[in-house]
C-alpha cells in the first residue's frame, strides 16, 4: 500500500511539474515568476492539513487515551513543520522578486511564522519530557492550544490589510483553467506524498517507542 502511494506520488509529481513549468501559460503581470505558486501553495496546504490532522489526533488521544493517536499527532506535526519551513522559504524568495525584500512583516508572513514557531514549541515540549504519559497528555493540550494559530494564519488575509495575493476566495479561483488544472494536480500529488511520508513517520515513531520500552526492560532486568 505504502509503495503504491509512493509510485502514485512520484508519477503525479512528474506530471504536475510538467503542467506547472510547461503547460500552464505565463501570468499577465508577473510572467513566469508566478510559477512559484505551484510549489508555495501546495506546501502551505500540506502545512495546514498536517497541523489540523495533528490537532484532531491530540483531541482523540485525550478522549480515548490510545497512544497511536499521540504518535500520529507527533508525526503529522513534524511533517507540518517541514512543509511550513518550505512555505516560509519559498514565500520569502517570491517576496524578494515581487516586493523587493525577503521579509517585510506582512500579516500573512508574520502569522505563518507564529504558527511555525508554535508547532516548533510542541515538538520541543515533547522532546523535553521524559515520562511517556505526561509527554502525551501535556503535548496534546499544548497542540490543541497551538492550533489557534492555524485559522489565524489562514484568515489573516481577511483580518488584516496585506500585500499577499488571495488565489482561492469565496468567489472562486483567480486563475485561468490551465493554471487551475496545474495547481490542482500539484496539490493532489503533494497530498499523496504527504500521506506516504506520514506513514513512514508513524512507523519511525512506533519503532522508537518499542526500542525504548525494550531498552528499559533490559536495563531493569540487567
Amino acid at each position, binding site marked *: 500500500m505504502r509503495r503504491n502511494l509512493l509510485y502514485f506520488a512520484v508519477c503525479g509529481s512528474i506530471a504536475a511539474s510538467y503542467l506547472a513549468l510547461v503547460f500552464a501559460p505565463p501570468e499577465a503581470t508577473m510572467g513566469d515568476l508566478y510559477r512559484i505558486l505551484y510549489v508555495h501553495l501546495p506546501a502551505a496546504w500540506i502545512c495546514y492539513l498536517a497541523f489540523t490532522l495533528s490537532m484532531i489526533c491530540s483531541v482523540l488521544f485525550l478522549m480515548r487515551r490510545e497512544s497511536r493517536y499521540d504518535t500520529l499527532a507527533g508525526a503529522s506535526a513534524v511533517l507540518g513543520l517541514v512543509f511550513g519551513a518550505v512555505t516560509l522559504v519559498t514565500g520569502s524568495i517570491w517576496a524578494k522578486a515581487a516586493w523587493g525584500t525577503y521579509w517585510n512583516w506582512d500579516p500573512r508572513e508574520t502569522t505563518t511564522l507564529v504558527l511555525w514557531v508554535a508547532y516548533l514549541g510542541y515538538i520541543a515540549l515533547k522532546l523535553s519530557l521524559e515520562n511517556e504519559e505526561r509527554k502525551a497528555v501535556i503535548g496534546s493540550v499544548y497542540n490543541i492550544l497551538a492550533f489557534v494559530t492555524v485559522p489565524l494564519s489562514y484568515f489573516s488575509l481577511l483580518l488584516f490589510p496585506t500585500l499577499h495575493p488571495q488565489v482561492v476566495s469565496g468567489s472562486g479561483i483567480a486563475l485561468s483553467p490551465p493554471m487551475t488544472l496545474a495547481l490542482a494536480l500539484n496539490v493532489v500529488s503533494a497530498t499523496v506524498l504527504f500521506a506516504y511520508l506520514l506513514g513512514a513517520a508513524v512507523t519511525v515513531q512506533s519503532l522508537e517507542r*518499542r526500542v525504548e520500552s525494550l531498552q528499559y526492560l533490559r536495563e531493569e532486568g540487567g
Partner: protein
Amino acid sequence: MLEVFLVSVVYWASLLFLFVWLNRRVQRLTARLAVLEGDNADRDE
C-alpha cells in the same frame, strides 16, 4: 526563472531529505529492535 528554479530546489531537496532520513531511521530502528528482541529471547531461554 532563477527564483522558480531556487524554489523547486528548496521543495524537492526538503522532500528528498525527509524521504531518505525517514527510511534510514526505519532501517536503523528495525536492526536495533532485532538485536533487543534477540537479547530478550536469549534471557527468556
